[in-house]
């Protein structure tokens, strides 16, 4: 087995007859000198923690330390009790699970950084929401989470997954691309379809800046999570239809890297531009940071 796989092209070549998670789990087990079963049980630990965070988040409406966010999941749940979502039950699940998880994060609850804390709700909401609706087995959920992790890992070889380095495209953007790959795996997509789902999602989020109000992982991060979870579903549906990203996956990641470098430091987690410098943001800053 090839030990280092740093590009999607290499991944595709190694997946000769097997799929992404199979290639990935063999390599990871070998690299960390553990069995595939042991590796999968580590993945399951993250999966279980994701489900726990959703469960806790759905019950709580405690506000964050700053008091700015924390009760939107409750609002959304109430709305769906009265009116079903236009896009159906799965849409309701994904959006409420995403808000549940990200709000659990900001009230210092236990979450899984995936890939980061600010983007922690995107992968779990898609993975768990879809699994429940389509009755997908735990083994297949683990396969999907490995797929998400492998995609994130390859991207992280080129781009640091941090808003301070490359903007939110590298946090919530990458989380959405990871989710698109995971969902495509769950729905039985081919290696090609998985990689295209990733590329389509990523491509559409290039340039997403990181401008958190008061420097806190709250505004715009909280609402960005349910948005980009649904975004991942769109990418997966397109890819499963055989629609391809005309720009190949590795080149999309090159563009992600370059865009991150070109992005002004004022828009990379420094809270010196964008939403963070709006009139209201400045007022909030006065209120909370003094």
């Amino acid at each position, binding site marked *: 087995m090839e030990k*280092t796989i*740093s590009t999607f092209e290499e991944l595709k070549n190694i997946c000769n007859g097997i799929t992404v998670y199979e290639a*990935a789990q063999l390599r*990871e087990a070998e*690299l*960390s000198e553990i069995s595939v079963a042991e*590796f999968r049980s*580590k*993945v399951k*630990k*993250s999966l279980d*923690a994701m489900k726990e965070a959703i469960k806790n988040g759905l019950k709580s409406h405690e506000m*964050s*330390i*700053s008091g700015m966010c924390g009760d939107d999941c409750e609002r959304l749940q109430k709305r769906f009790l009265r009116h079903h979502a236009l896009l159906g039950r799965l849409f309701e699940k994904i959006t409420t699970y995403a808000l549940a998880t990200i709000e*659990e*994060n*900001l*009230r*210092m*609850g*236990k*979450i*899984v*950084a*995936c*890939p*980061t*804390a*600010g983007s*922690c709700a995107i*992968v779990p909401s898609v993975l768990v929401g879809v699994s429940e609706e389509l009755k997908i087995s735990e083994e297949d959920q683990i396969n999907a*989470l*490995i797929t*998400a*992790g*492998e995609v*994130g*890992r390859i991207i*992280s*070889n080129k781009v*640091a*997954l*941090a808003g*301070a*380095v490359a903007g939110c495209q590298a946090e919530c953007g990458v989380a959405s691309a*990871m989710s698109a790959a995971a969902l495509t795996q769950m729905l039985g997509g081919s290696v090609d379809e998985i990689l295209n789902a990733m590329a389509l999602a990523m491509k559409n989020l290039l340039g997403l800046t990181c401008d958190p109000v*008061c*420097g*806190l*992982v*709250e505004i715009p991060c909280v609402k960005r999570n349910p948005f980009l979870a649904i975004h991942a579903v769109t990418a997966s549906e397109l890819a499963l239809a055989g629609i391809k990203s005309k720009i190949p996956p590795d080149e999309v990641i090159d563009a992600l890297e370059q865009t991150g470098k070109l992005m002004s430091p004022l828009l990379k987690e420094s809270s010196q531009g964008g939403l963070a410098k709006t009139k209201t943001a400045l007022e909030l800053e006065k209120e*909370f*940071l003094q």
Partner: protein
Amino acid sequence: MKQSTIIDIISPIMAGPSSSHTAGAIRLGLMAKNIYNGKIKSVTFRLYNSFALTGKGHGTDKGLLAGLLGLAVDDSRIKNIFNSDIAKQFDYNYEYAQDFNRHPNAVDFTIDGENGRMIISGESVGAGEIAIRKINDFTVKLTGKYNTLLLIYKDVPNMIARVTNAIHINIASLNCDRYAKGEEASMSICLDGSVDDKVLDFLKNIKNVYFVSYIKKLES
């Protein structure tokens, strides 16, 4: 560059809300606890720059304290640590400062206790990763990923050879620093394995070695 693993991407399981400002703070506290390695009477946390400005909203203050008390990054007690009984073990207070010569997420721990006073400086460098940069006046680089030997000694020839000869495991990295030629110097050695008390005793008895500390790596 070290390649990350899949598990790195889909972890850690942690108390929110920020990997750099919360999980990183807890891990800095845990490292400071391992470095001090003794009963603590009191501590002052001095938070710099972004840690100072957004630390409250991110629970950085709670995280630093929780780590120093030995709580793991996913411990649910962190949120209410100020009201919890475990936080009564020692006195603590916080200072806030702006200093552009320091990392955006920097902290100094001034710890008093059974091992006297120790000042430990560290930074949270992103995604929960940390680095300890200074212990008292010595420059070090500890990331918590390796078991590390820290030695303070008189700067004399052959010291590195004598020390490394006594360690029969692979060395991942080695950093030295000194006040001036022939004065007090420090060595931090990151190890791929672990050393036992016999090695530590041997090192302590090398002539001109003043101080030896074995700093255990953090659980990932």
